[in-house]
Structure formats: structure tokens, C-alpha cells
């Protein structure tokens, strides 16, 4: 093998990794938003991704809604699902023990999965790429236009995310709740409302992840668990609660997975990300970007 060939292979793996990683990053951001508001890991996060993808498929292929409209509609529907989840399962709990809340989110994830299976059946659904599937060639490696869409949308979401949490009243009050809920309540912030917003936003981000990845992976009702798990890994590696850390960690995990599959063994590819999750958990529970002091005080 000559050098340029090796380089193009490497680049190919990196492209693949970034594409996978972007999805992990989005799922991880969703985890973090709810974690910051409630101190709970929402095990139904993966199901938001599935719902987003499946609703998008139904809208575009069965109802023939234009892609852009369908994109926003699907996101909205899943956001509503997120709000419903919060209003009916998280909000009514009077003495919210963490263990109990975790199990509630597990129950919701089982329920959502069951609902998805009843509506869409067990087939996997495929959808056309947003703008064709003719790959671009860069230094001998190829990249799909859809991958560029995924990266682009990730960047836009991160941008809006920063804007929202730093420059809007709702975002700021949500941040205040995350830092110190009692204090936030004292200055008149409705912390329960902040929790609801966090479910809406996190469901929306999950839905977008599902929508943009569906053309590449074919969505089915059972994909939520693994996507959730990997995203969860990204959230931990990036430092629970740290959304920018999650984005970086998600992409790193994706790239390591792709490189592992490319250079070591594809048989254990899925185990690589999880192994990294465990190692980080054991050696640096605060994540690669968090402070170690903070993790000791965390409830989760």
C-alpha cells in the first residue's frame, strides 16, 4: 500500500466516524439537558430518536409532505411527546427519588417502543437522502451529501444551543435551575416549568438526530436502545451535564469506533465505545472535560 492510499483510507474512516459521532453527540446533548434540569438520566432518549426518524419517514413517503416542512413538523410532534412525557410521568411525582425517576424513564422507553411497534410494525424504513446520494470525493475518500447535512445540522444546533442558554430568558433560567435549583426558585424561577422545557428541547434534539440519520441507517422501532446507549457513553465521556463536552466526546467516540473497525476488528466494533465509556467512568468519572470535584457531588 502506498502512502496516499493509506491516507485516503484514514480519511474515509474519519468521515464515517464523524457521521456516527454526530448522532451520538446529538443524543448526548439530549441526555444532558434533562440531566441538568432533573438530575436524572432519561432512558427514553433513544426512543425520541426513533420516533423522529419514523415520523419523518411517514410524512415524506406516505403523506408526501415536503422535506423541510416534514422536518419541522416531525420535530414538533416529538417535542410534544416529550412534553407529554414530562407532564404525565415526571411532573406528578411528589417525592422524586432518583432511583424512582430512572425507573419511570425506563418504563416510558418501553412504552414508547411498544407504541412505535404498534404504529409502524417491525419493518425497517428507508428514506431518500436529503439531496441525492452521489458521493463527493476528497483526497481519495468519499463522503455522502447526507453526511454533510448531518455535520451542518449539528453545528447549527450547537450554535442555537449556545445562543439559547446564554442569551434568552428561558435558557438562562434553565441554566440557573441546573446550577442551584433552590436558589433559582428563590429568585422566582419556576423550576417545574424549566423541567418541562428541558424535556421539550431534548426530545426535539433527539428527533432531529433521528430525522437526519434515517436516510443512512434505515429506521426501525428497536433502534432506540443502542443509539441511546452510545449517546449515553458520549455524555459520560464528555462529562455529564456538559453539553459542549458531549459534542466533542460524541465525535471522538464515533471516530474511535470507525478507526477500531477499520484497523483492529469489526467484530467488536460496538464494544469499543462501551469500553471507553467504562474506562472513563472508572478513571475519570467527571468525563474528559469535567472537573473531578464536581462528579463527587453529583447525585447520579
Amino acid at each position: 500500500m502506498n502512502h496516499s492510499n493509506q491516507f485516503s483510507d484514514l480519511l474515509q474512516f474519519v468521515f464515517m466516524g464523524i457521521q456516527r459521532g454526530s448522532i451520538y453527540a446529538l443524543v448526548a446533548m439530549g441526555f444532558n439537558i434533562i440531566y441538568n434540569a432533573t438530575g436524572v438520566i432519561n432512558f427514553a432518549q433513544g426512543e425520541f430518536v426513533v420516533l423522529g426518524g419514523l415520523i419523518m419517514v411517514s410524512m415524506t413517503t406516505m403523506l408526501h409532505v415536503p422535506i423541510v416542512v416534514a422536518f419541522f413538523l416531525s420535530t414538533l410532534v416529538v417535542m410534544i411527546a416529550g412534553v407529554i412525557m414530562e407532564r404525565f410521568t415526571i411532573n406528578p411525582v411528589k417525592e422524586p427519588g432518583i432511583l424512582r425517576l430512572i425507573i419511570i424513564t425506563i418504563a416510558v422507553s418501553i412504552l414508547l417502543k411498544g407504541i412505535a411497534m404498534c404504529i409502524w410494525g417491525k419493518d425497517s424504513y428507508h428514506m431518500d437522502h436529503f439531496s441525492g446520494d452521489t458521493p463527493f470525493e476528497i483526497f481519495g475518500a468519499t463522503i455522502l451529501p447526507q453526511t454533510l447535512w448531518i455535520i451542518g445540522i449539528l453545528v447549527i444546533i450547537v450554535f442555537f444551543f449556545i445562543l439559547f442558554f446564554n442569551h434568552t430568558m428561558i435558557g438562562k433560567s434553565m441554566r440557573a435551575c441546573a446550577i442551584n435549583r433552590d436558589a433559582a426558585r428563590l429568585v422566582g424561577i419556576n423550576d417545574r416549568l424549566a423541567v418541562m422545557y428541558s424535556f421539550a428541547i431534548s426530545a426535539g434534539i433527539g428527533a432531529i438526530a433521528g430525522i437526519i440519520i434515517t436516510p443512512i441507517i434505515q429506521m426501525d422501532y428497536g433502534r432506540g436502545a443502542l443509539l441511546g446507549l452510545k449517546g449515553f457513553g458520549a455524555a459520560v465521556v464528555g462529562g455529564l451535564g456538559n453539553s459542549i463536552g458531549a459534542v466533542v466526546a460524541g465525535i471522538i467516540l464515533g471516530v474511535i469506533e470507525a478507526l477500531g473497525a477499520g484497523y483492529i476488528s469489526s467484530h467488536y466494533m460496538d464494544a469499543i465505545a462501551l469500553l471507553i465509556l467504562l474506562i472513563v467512568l472508572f478513571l475519570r468519572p467527571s468525563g474528559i472535560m469535567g472537573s473531578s470535584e464536581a462528579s463527587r457531588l453529583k447525585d447520579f
Partner: protein
Amino acid sequence: MNRKLFCFTAVSFFMVMSALTPHLFAEDYKVGCLFSITGSASWLGEPERNTAEMIAEEINKAGGINGHKLKLYIEDTQGDNTRAVNATKKLIKKDKVCAIIGPSRSGTSMAVIPIVQAEQIPLISCAGAEVIVEPVQERKWVFKTPQKDSDCVKRIYDHLTAKGIKDIGIISGTTGFGTAGRDQLKAIAKEYGMNIVADETYSPADTDMTAQLVKIRNSGAKALVNWSIVPAQSIVPKNMKQLKFDIPLYQSHGFGNVKYVEAAGPAADGIIFPGGRLLCVDSVSDDNPQKAVLKQYRDAYEARFKDKVSTFGGHAYDSLWLVINALKAVGDDPAKIRDYLETSTLVGTGGVFKFSPTDHNGLDKNAFEMITIKNGEFVVLKD
């Protein structure tokens, strides 16, 4: 009352009764079905269940089997071993069936074999793996209808040899089906002088196989065999197209599902795979003995369920007809059914079956037709 008349009436009453009895009071013939109707392998179980129900209805409408109604006890294994084991016990011990068809998956078939062996009930599996019926000495009560993996491999290798290709890459899904195929591909390679230069796998939940394909590309493979039964297999041709990786792609008989072709889109064109003739009924030559059976089953199925026929339903078709023929011939004694099955022949959807005490599958490599994809349709490969 006149005594003679009474005798006459009595005798004639009994004669009429005994003539009618099988039709009026005959016990149902009970056959159990184990299909993974729901769960992760529902795409197997659903057509199987549909097919079995369709045949039973047909048979009963025509008066049953020798006057006995055919009653099916259909159990859903959900592709899960524990449920399959429970369901098998239920069929045997509660419903008292005389034979079982299914399970749909290799793993669940393996899980229930100890039970049917111990309870001495014949089982005709609808799953692919060859270990289900081998070694035959240890699988006295177990039969299967899907074509053999090794025959599929042989057809692929025959085709590769004809094309003069020796260096191949293989990629397989990490399910029972994929692993069994991977083993066969490796085992038979030597016999054909094939040189496996790359051996990759992907999990059913995998989303992108470019990494594996780049490795295969670098290995210098001249053709790729993709062996899997899960939907993820359609990502391989798509990724190959993305990578502009242009070598012949062979699939296994697990690709025999229109939905996979649809999912792969235009990238599926040109894929070659050995499959049951059910997939390409229209392009099967008219002198083929299976043609009539295939056409009749396909038309009936598609008319009734408004869905494309699949080879998996075909496996259930073959299995159930084997049992029905046995019931016709020897009644519902499990041991007799078993003995009869060992001598059975059947022109089915999967091929022309010829069972024997040493062969509980009854098919050879001619059961496969080399099929290719043209404009998203299965057609018989002609070269």
C-alpha cells in the same frame, strides 16, 4: 314393532353412522406451529403464519384430511429461546399436537430440539442452519425445509469459479444465520480453491459498513460475499456505491426479500445470489417441475394478503404440506409421521424434496436458482 324392521333400521343406522362418523365426529388433526411472529425476527414469522393459516383454511374448506379437520396451534416465539421452549412444551403437553412446524430461527430451533427429541414429536424447522438436522443420528425427530447453507455456498463458488475469480472477501451479519454462513464459506473454500482474503462482520444494528469495506478493498478481493439475513445487509451495496468500490457482490439466500432490495435502492442492481425460485416465479423456465406450485402459491398468497410473497412463507408452505401428506398417509401418530417423513418426496417452493433416513433436509444445490436484481426486481440470472 316388527322385529325384522327394527333389525334392518338398526343395522342401516349403524352403517350410515359409521360411514359418516369420520366426517362428523372424527377428531381434529392437531399440528403445532412455532413462528417468530413478533419481535426482532417478525419478518420471518409473519409470512409463515399467514401461509400456514391459508393452507389450513383451504384444506378444511375441502373437507379436511381423510375427514379429519386440520387444526393449527400457532405459537409466537418472538424469536426468544425461553418463549420457544415454553411454547413447544405447551404444544406437546397441553395441546397434544402430533407434529410441529417451525421455529423460524436457527437459535430457537436449536433450543427446542432437546424437547422434541425427548417427547418424540416430529419437528420440521423453517430455519436455515444445517446443524439443526445434523448429525442425523442425534436428530431423529428433526427435519427442515429451507435450503442448505452449504449448497448456497457451493452455488456461489461455482459461479465464481466460472468467472475465474479466486480471491474473495466475505462480510457477514452477527446472527445465527450469518455466523453459520461464515463458517460454511470458510469450510468449503478449500474444496473450490477459493482464497478468502478478508473476513469482516457487522451487527444487526450497525449503520455503516464503510470501515469494513475499505479493509476489504485493501485486501485485494476480486468479489465480495455478503452473508446475512438482517435488514442491515442492504447497507453494504449502498456503502459500496458510496465508496465507488466496484467488484461483483454476491449475497446469500437471506437476501430473498423484496424489502431489502427496496432498501438498497439502485445500488442493489447487479447483485447475484442463490435463492429459492419463489422469488422469480415469472422468469423460471416453464419446464421446471416447481413452476406450477410456485405460481399457485404466489398468486394465492399475494391475492389474499396484499403483500409480496417471501421465501420464508414458502418454507412454512413446504413444511406444512409435508405434514399434511404424512397425515393423509399414516394418520396422526407422531412416530408414524416421522417414519413417513423420512421417505417423503415433495415438489415444494424451496425445491424438489427427497427425504431419507440420512438426509433430513431432502434438498441439493439444484434447489437454488442463481438470481440477480434488475431494476429492483428478482430475475433468474442467465449466464
